[in-house]
């Protein structure tokens, strides 16, 4: 087991996870994006909060001759564009999770490589995707003011960064507590620390509500499909990586015992 073997497996699993999340996003998410864009189109000028932010949803009849604006057709955005996004994010996250899994092998109490990899994936999903989503949920097209995109981007990624850092620290605390007081106290202590710190952070960060008159059912279905997309991506990374790391470990144990047997002869 080497860093390289974990990275390669993470990248491959991430690619497949990206493909799986594309299928989910395309099937359950795209219909909601289409509804949101048709609402945006049919709204009278200035009625939506996103009246003039220089952003287009790519229609040839827009007559948008603005300098530097590149238009990509909806047919491309909802297929190749979406696939590009999910595959790239899948590969990047898969590789990162793979390397973190490599670093945690043998360092999370007495967890086996398979168990520690599953733990890393679960913590990754919670801290990188789920908790940021709970505070700043995904917004469909037509929701969100172009004037606040700078602030919203800063708050979102600030929350993601803090959430990941706090999750790492809470895990270190959990490992230390488990050494002295046992696994139950360690896990509850570490998880409690993370939840308390993130609850306080979420209370202190500004709330964004730019939904306006956007229909509640479309918003709910869109957010549900977005959460399903993220859950698919992380579940596929977690299950896939846990499986291949387990096999990697079994192979290295078998090789080790063969060497010991050979040495004893």
């Amino acid at each position, binding site marked *: *087991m*080497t*860093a*390289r073997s974990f*990275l390669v497996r993470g990248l491959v699993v991430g690619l497949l996870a990206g493909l799986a999340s594309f299928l989910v*996003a395309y099937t359950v*998410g*795209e219909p909601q*994006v289409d509804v949101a864009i048709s609402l945006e189109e049919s709204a009278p000028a200035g009625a939506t909060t*996103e009246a003039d*932010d220089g*952003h*287009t*949803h*790519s229609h040839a009849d827009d007559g948008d001759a603005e300098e*530097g*604006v*590149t238009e*990509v057709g909806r047919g491309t*955005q*909802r297929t*190749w*564009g*979406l696939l*590009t*996004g999910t595959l*790239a*994010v899948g590969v*990047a996250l898969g*590789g*990162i999770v793979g*390397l973190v899994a*490599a*670093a945690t*092998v*043998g360092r999370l109490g*007495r*967890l*086996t490589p398979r168990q520690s990899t599953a733990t890393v994936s679960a913590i990754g999903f919670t801290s990188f995707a789920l908790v*940021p989503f709970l505070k700043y*949920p*995904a*917004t*469909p*097209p037509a929701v*969100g003011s*172009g004037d606040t*995109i*700078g602030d*919203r*981007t800063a708050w*979102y*990624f600030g929350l993601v960064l803090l959430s990941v850092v706090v999750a790492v620290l809470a895990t270190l605390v959990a490992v230390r507590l488990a050494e002295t007081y046992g696994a139950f106290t360690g896990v509850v202590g570490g998880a409690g620390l993370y939840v308390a710190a993130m609850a306080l952070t979420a209370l202190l960060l500004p709330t964004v509500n730019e939904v306006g008159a956007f229909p509640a059912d479309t918003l709910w279905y*869109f957010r549900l*499909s*977005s*959460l399903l*997309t993220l859950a698919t*991506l992380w579940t596929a990374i977690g299950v896939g990586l846990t499986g291949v790391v387990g096999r990697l470990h079994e192979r*290295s144990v078998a090789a080790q015992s063969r060497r010991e047997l050979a040495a004893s002869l």
Partner: protein
Amino acid sequence: MSSAVATPVPEVEIPSIPLAEIAPWALFFGLLGTLVLFFISADQGAISLPAGTAIHEWVHDGRHLLGYPCH
């Protein structure tokens, strides 16, 4: 039944990978992965490198459905 208490937990040796061996991989791929995530999730939204809207437009739907602030 008191004998069960005395049974020690078997020490299972789990090999770990030296952090010094992981560090160069983590540094290189951490930067690369972060860069990829940035271009997919945030570029040409609040910050634009390079200027224009081509990347934003291309990954538009992915950005919305993966939960990133798009516009």
